[in-house]
C-alpha cells in the first residue's frame, strides 16, 4: 500500500544514483574525502529510501538477514588482520601495490581497502538491521 506514486518513481530513479554515489565515495576514499564509513551511510540511506516507499511488503521472513551482513563485514575485516600474521608479517600489516590493468592503466591496490570494505559492510548492515527491526510491522 504505497500511497504516493510520485515518491515511488522519484525513489526508483534516485536509488541507483545513490548506490553509485556510495561506490564512488568508497573507491576514492583512500585519496580523497570518502571511505568505508561514509559510503556505508550513503548506501544505508539508499536502502532505507526503498524501505520508506515499499515498507516491508515483501519481507515476511523475519530472519535478521542484515545481521549476517554485519557478520560478513566483521569476518572480512578480521581476515585482513589475520592473514598477514599467517604470511609471517606482524599482525595487521597492510601492503599496497600497483597493478596495470589493460584498459584502466595502473590501479593502486591497497589491502587497507579490503579492511575498508569490511567497515563499509558492517556500517550498512548495522544501520539497516536497526531500522528494519524498529519499523517492522509487529
Amino acid at each position, binding site marked *: *500500500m504505497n*500511497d504516493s506514486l510520485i*515518491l515511488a518513481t522519484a525513489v526508483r530513479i*534516485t536509488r541507483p544514483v*545513490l548506490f553509485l*554515489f556510495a561506490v564512488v*565515495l568508497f573507491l576514492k576514499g583512500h585519496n*580523497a*574525502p*570518502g571511505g568505508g564509513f*561514509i559510503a556505508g551511510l*550513503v548506501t544505508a*540511506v539508499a536502502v*532505507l*529510501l526503498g*524501505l*520508506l516507499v515499499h*515498507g*516491508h511488503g515483501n519481507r515476511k521472513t523475519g530472519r535478521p538477514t542484515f545481521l549476517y551482513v554485519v557478520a560478513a563485514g566483521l569476518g572480512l575485516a578480521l581476515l585482513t588482520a589475520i592473514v598477514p600474521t599467517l604470511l609471517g608479517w606482524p599482525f595487521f600489516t597492510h601492503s599496497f601495490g600497483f597493478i596495470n590493468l589493460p584498459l584502466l592503466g595502473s590501479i593502486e591496490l591497497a589491502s587497507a581497502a579490503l579492511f575498508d570494505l569490511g567497515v563499509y559492510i558492517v556500517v550498512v548492515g548495522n544501520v539497516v538491521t536497526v*531500522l528494519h527491526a524498529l*519499523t517492522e*510491522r509487529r
Partner: protein
Amino acid sequence: MLESVAGGCLIFLSLSLLVSLYRVVRGPSVADRVIAADTMTTSVLAVVVVGAILADSRDYTDTVMALAVVSFFGTVAFARYLVRGRPVD
C-alpha cells in the same frame, strides 16, 4: 573581485540561515518546521559551495551532494511520519 562577492554572498546566506532557523523555532505547525529545516539545508549547501570556491578546493563536491541527499531523505521521512506515525508502515 571574486573574494568580495563571495564574502557578500556568504553574509546573506548566513542571514537566510538564521531566518530559516527562526521559522524552525517559531513554525506553528510541524510542516513549517520541516520546510524550514529543508531551507536550512539548502543554505548550508550554498555556504559550503561558496566556501569551496573561496578555498579553491575540489574536495567538497561529495559534501554538497550529500547535503542534497539529506534534504530529500529528511523531508520524505518526515512526510511519511506525519501521516502514518512511523516513517515506514
